[in-house]
């Protein structure tokens, strides 16, 4: 006979010794470059970033509200280029990585300026930005902030996790007036869902919180984006009490009321959804590394648009690490921008299955920014 605590101790020790210790150093560094790119993607910018070297910073933001790239988008040194595509403008430049700073292009001075915080979104008038909390945590800057780009003053937004609530990044509205943060909560069954929005008026800094209503049987999971007219927020939903595939999209009014619930037909597992730049279309993305179809839907009408094989994305290695988000940007209902080996900018046409290299980035480091072209 043995007691449970002894048994747990022995079992966990035995279990821990069973694994085969992997080699990790270079693998982690390569992954770190990908992760940096993912952080920028996840920060709400309509941007993808490719990084090769790790030295100093260069993140310049293109606010979705501008509807165009505000370049020249290169940092002060290094090579750069611009590619105009139907529906999008792609800027690439050499750069490097430092997650604690951002470069931004000041249109008034015509110069690049360094901000000692991570910029997440910039208002269309290039006056204010949303900045991330410091990481590692620092009591002096442990919340998201509204940054005055002309003075460097930071308004602490007071979005600190407490009482089981966590604030997550959201997105700037397409009209550029409002940034929305998500308030999430993990319930007693260990299910996480969004329970509220916190809006920040980019011009005045005023904040407003709303609680979300959830439809019966569904939990609100993640923000996909704003609708193109800035009237609604698109949120994915999962059947209540389940951890598996997402099953619906929700259209929320800014006051937290539900405008529409679109339940997806069964049979296609969806692990996250991505918005097609500047549209109301969303792509239902399958689990990483699973060769399942991608479905495009209209989040406003709730209608099915088209379905594609994800095979071209697998072929070029755009989905590699299950811990990472998909490093891509949808620029139309059938075209995805991505990268390969941190050197090539790729355009994948899911309608034909073709993959085209549209730029090669010279040197040791590269960033890509993608913005809708209107």
């Amino acid at each position, binding site marked *: 006979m043995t007691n449970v605590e002894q048994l747990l101790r022995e079992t966990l020790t035995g279990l821990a010794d069973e694994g085969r210790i992997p080699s990790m*150093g270079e693998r982690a560094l390569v992954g770190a470059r*990908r992760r940096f790119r993912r*952080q920028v993607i996840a920060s709400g910018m309509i941007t993808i970033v490719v990084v090769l070297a790790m030295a100093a910073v260069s993140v310049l933001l293109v606010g979705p509200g501008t509807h165009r790239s505000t370049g020249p988008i290169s940092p002060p040194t290094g090579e750069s280029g611009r590619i105009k595509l139907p529906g999008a403008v792609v800027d690439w430049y050499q750069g490097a990585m430092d997650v604690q700073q951002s470069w931004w292009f000041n249109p008034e001075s015509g110069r690049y300026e360094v901000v000692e915080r991570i910029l997440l979104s910039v208002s269309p008038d290039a006056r204010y930005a949303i900045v991330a909390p410091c990481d590692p945590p620092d009591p002096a800057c442990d919340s998201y902030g509204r940054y005055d780009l002309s003075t460097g003053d930071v308004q602490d937004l007071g979005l600190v996790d407490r009482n089981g609530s966590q604030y997550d990044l959201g997105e700037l509205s397409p009209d550029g007036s409002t940034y929305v943060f998500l308030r999430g909560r993990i319930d007693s069954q260990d299910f996480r869902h969004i329970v509220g929005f916190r809006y920040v008026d980019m011009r005045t800094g005023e904040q407003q919180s709303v609680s979300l209503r959830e439809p019966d049987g569904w939990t609100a999971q993640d923000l996909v984006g704003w609708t193109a007219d800035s009237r609604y927020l698109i949120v994915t939903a999962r059947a209540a009490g389940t951890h598996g595939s997402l099953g619906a999209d929700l259209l929320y009014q800014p006051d937290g009321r539900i405008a529409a619930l679109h339940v997806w037909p069964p049979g296609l597992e969806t692990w996250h959804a991505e918005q097609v730049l500047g549209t109301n279309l969303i792509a239902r993305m399958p689990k990483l590394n699973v060769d399942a179809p991608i479905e495009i839907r209209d989040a406003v009408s709730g209608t099915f648009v088209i379905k594609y094989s994800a095979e071209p994305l697998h072929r070029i290695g755009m989905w590699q690490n*299950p*811990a990472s988000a998909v490093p891509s940007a949808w620029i139309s209902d059938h075209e995805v921008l991505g990268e390969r080996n941190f050197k090539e900018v790729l355009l994948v046409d899911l309608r034909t299955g073709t993959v085209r290299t549209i730029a090669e980035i010279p040197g040791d480091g590269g960033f890509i920014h993608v913005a809708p072209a209107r």
Partner: protein
Amino acid sequence: MDDAARSDFLTFVHACTGTLFRVAYALTGQQQTAEDLLQASLEKIALRWRWIRDPEAYARKVIYQEFVSLRRRHWVKEILTADLPERAPAADPSRTVDLRHALIAALATLPPRQRAVLVLRYLEDHTDTEIARIMSCSRPTVSSQAHRALARLRTRCPELSDAFEETRS
């Protein structure tokens, strides 16, 4: 990351991979998932390397927090299973070995925070106060998570009833 920092980071990874991987494996119970967890954690550490004063302590914290958040987001379906494909079937007829296999299967069904608390408490021998610091939560939360975890193990693993009685007595 400049060359010196890169060299320091690689030295740290080389020295600590074994220790950290044990933790990752105890949390996930699967080789590939443990590698993914450790890699994801080291990636975060690499990005913050300049600002980290105690890399190993920081790494542990990241691993536990990463386990909780990543499992919730991406891995739940892969991990919430009683099947342990990488484990050999229970060949040893002794009761203790059977119990351990049953316990491992039951551990795999625990929510991530509960499992993390058990690993911190019973593999790493941390106090509840230390666990609270690592998990960024309060000490009562740690206690309640541990209590719930043990209760769930008891429900999921009837074979452990004698061991629970032994603990109680």
